């Protein structure tokens, strides 16, 4: 692995939980040479599964792991739905790490699932706020900084297969992730002239970490045993195995690196061939 991101500073949201996508992406960014600011909400919210939010200790441990790789790291508690938090976070990254080159909008809500006819307004609002407004606020703050720096940059949004196709009990989630692709495309147009690329990755279901909650929820809602549910999922994927955090981290780091310089406004499927459009 070449250190293709050497000298770059990356900011990734939702990177607290040890088994989460954000953690895997943060470490891969560091392995490829980037200094990394990791953020998380840190404190839990009502109605979230216990394992949903990274703790302060987990976030600090992630920063420590990045330092052990020989990179600089910064751990920030930050609520992506708060414009004020986001502004302050970006300022901290710039003052502590000197600049920012890469934003990974990873923080997301992958629970609060319900049939659309049963979903509460509160759950809809939370899902849309974290998954869609959060990336808008972070992209706005980092985008301004990147424009001011004047030498380009990268924004990578973690969307989902649910940004391309629908699943039941996920009206808020599908709406937010489809919307995130829309935002990605507009930002790609608006920020392109500044040498900033904006792309999304669309993984299918990662079954570890918080995915374990989804395995349980969706298998139960389909009256399937969990093993049966996962077997069926495997059967739908031409490569015959489930998506891992590392698969997603590799795609994100490629989009964040120099080799993807001419990839812009794309929504890259990372699904082993399950999603093809």
């Amino acid at each position: 692995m070449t250190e293709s991101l050497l000298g770059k500073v990356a900011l990734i949201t939702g990177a607290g939980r040890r088994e989460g996508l954000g953690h895997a992406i943060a470490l891969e960014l560091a392995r490829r040479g980037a200094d990394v600011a990791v953020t998380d909400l840190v404190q839990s919210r009502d109605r979230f599964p216990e394992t949903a939010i990274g703790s302060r200790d987990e976030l600090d441990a992630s920063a420590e792991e990045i330092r052990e790789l020989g990179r600089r790291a910064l751990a920030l508690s930050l609520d992506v739905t708060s414009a004020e938090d986001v502004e302050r976070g970006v300022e901290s990254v710039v003052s502590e790490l000197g600049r920012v080159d890469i934003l990974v909008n990873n923080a997301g809500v992958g629970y609060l699932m319900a049939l659309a006819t049963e979903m509460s307004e509160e759950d809809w609002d939370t899902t849309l706020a974290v998954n869609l407004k959060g990336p808008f606020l972070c992209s706005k703050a980092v985008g301004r900084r990147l424009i001011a720096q004047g030498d380009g940059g990268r924004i990578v949004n973690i969307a989902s297969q649910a940004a391309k196709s629908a699943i039941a009990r996920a009206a808020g989630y599908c709406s937010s992730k489809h919307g995130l692709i829309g935002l990605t495309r507009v930002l790609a147009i608006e920020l392109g002239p500044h040498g900033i690329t904006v792309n999304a990755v669309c993984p299918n279901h990662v079954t570890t970490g918080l995915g374990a909650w989804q395995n349980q929820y969706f298998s139960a809602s389909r009256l399937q045993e969990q093993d049966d549910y996962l077997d069926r999922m495997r059967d739908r994927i031409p490569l015959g195995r489930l998506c891992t955090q590392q698969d997603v981290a590799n795609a994100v780091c490629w989009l964040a690196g120099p080799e993807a310089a001419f990839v812009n406004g794309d929504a890259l499927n990372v699904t082993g061939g399950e999603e093809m459009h």
Partner: protein
Amino acid sequence: MLFENKVVVITGAARGQGRSHALGFAKEGADVVLSDICHDFEGPNYEMGTQAQLDEVVEQIQGMGRRAIGLQVDVRSESEMEVFISRAASEFGRIDVMVNNAGFLQMGAAHELTESQWDASIDTMLKGVYFGSRYAALQMKEQGDGGVICSTSSGGGFKGFGYIAHYVAAKHGVIGLTRALAVELAPFNIRVNAICPGHVATDMLSGAAPDAGLTAEELEAHLKRTILLPAPTLLSPSDITAAYLWICSEGARYVTGTQIVVDQGFLQKSNTN
């Protein structure tokens, strides 16, 4: 007639596309329940439809021998939408078709948009569509004999365009919502689709032109250059109504979870020119 004895609910119907849909469904025999916000609010930089305009549409439809009511409703409010849908059902007995049409356009670079501008667009054109769909679906499930939900997305539901990040995010979101609802509601024979208009000559386009530093005429001239067909004008609301009337009719009984693009070839041309 395609919608004899059917009850059709339409949001944003005081003028523009919503008005055209209301008249179109009524001509095909439907009774209609209409809404509009009927006041200005923070977000759009042009005037919204008025109660007088809404009343005029209602009177015109009543003059055609159909039943019609027009209510002031803010689609962003769950409680107002719940009351709106329940009034539709209680006054006219049932709901057969839900048309989520209400929307507006305001332009600005993504990194300059304020949080309240973002919220106004997402809440009106995505959350409002969710509320309309949700309460219509509950009513249709209770009726037990199917139904149709159709929402207005946009060419911006498929592609990105500069200076309308919130609009595009909302319209992409409508397509996601449409797909999710189609999956969930299919067992109840409730079909869910979206119509994706290109540039329709309404107060929305002319009203938003100044946001781009253009007059309405300049914007129209610019937009005319973006379409494939040698059309003398931009789309008329009736062009969009035609798609609505088909996709909500029995002829489209096996059409769900999809979108019809009515755009004079705009999306294709934007890929090639």
